[in-house]
């Protein structure tokens, strides 16, 4: 973390705290909205991808876990009722 800040002095503590607050808000929104029954019914790699997306909101990594393209994963996360939060 500190090495990263040394590389990027413009990344202030205040901004980092704002991102952390934002991450928590977004995670909670995804958790609350998710169709957990649908998620539990999925095969393991799809379930893992959806759970990852709920935690991190990162469509790219989630798509890679699922073995899908971003667009294909997006269809899945819509069916699981997990919102994109920005």
């Amino acid at each position, binding site marked *: 973390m500190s090495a*990263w800040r040394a590389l990027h002095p*413009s990344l202030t503590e205040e901004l980092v705290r704002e991102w952390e607050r934002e991450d928590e*808000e977004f995670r909670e929104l995804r958790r609350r909205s998710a169709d957990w029954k649908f998620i539990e019914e999925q095969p393991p790699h799809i379930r893992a991808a959806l759970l990852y997306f709920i935690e991190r*909101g*990162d469509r790219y990594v989630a798509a890679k876990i699922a073995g899908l393209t*971003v*667009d294909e994963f997006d269809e899945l996360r819509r069916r699981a009722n997990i919102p994109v939060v920005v």
Partner: protein
Amino acid sequence: MLGVVDACFLIDWSRYRRRELLASLFEAILVHEEVLAQLRSPSAIDFASRLLARGVLRLYPWSTAEEELYIQLRDEVALDPRIPSLERPDLLCLVIAHRTGATLLTENLGVLRVVQFHPAYSRVTAWTALEVLEQLVYRGLVEVGSAEEFLNIISEYCEDTKHVFSSKRMKDVVERVRAWLGR
């Protein structure tokens, strides 16, 4: 107005009932061929194809100099755990926006965070769908008579695309629209 679009924005916006309005807001929207290659769903492919056919969406001629900028940016941002991972096509869009002055259309939190702090790339104007909806109001392409009507427009987008906008972003945008309505 000139725009540049990433895959997440295209995927999401293509599901929106008022998607055709995007072509009224921008004279041209640049797209990298690697962004197009990410599209798989019928809605996104159909939407992008129609924009290409109308000449609104245009393939960006990528250069060696821009490839060097991409590598530099990738090395700068790839390792931070607080920035959601950025795929190559999204960073290419950021480089295009930086080089051309085009407004970047993105739904990618990682891209938005880079624009928040990066000394060079903080000059890029990045809009999510929320800011696009705001601009549609200012340009008279979507008519609203109150902040509540604007909130209804946002709700339509959220419903069509399964999106939620952050409370801070919503507050800021609604305040701006309310001020604009009261001008």
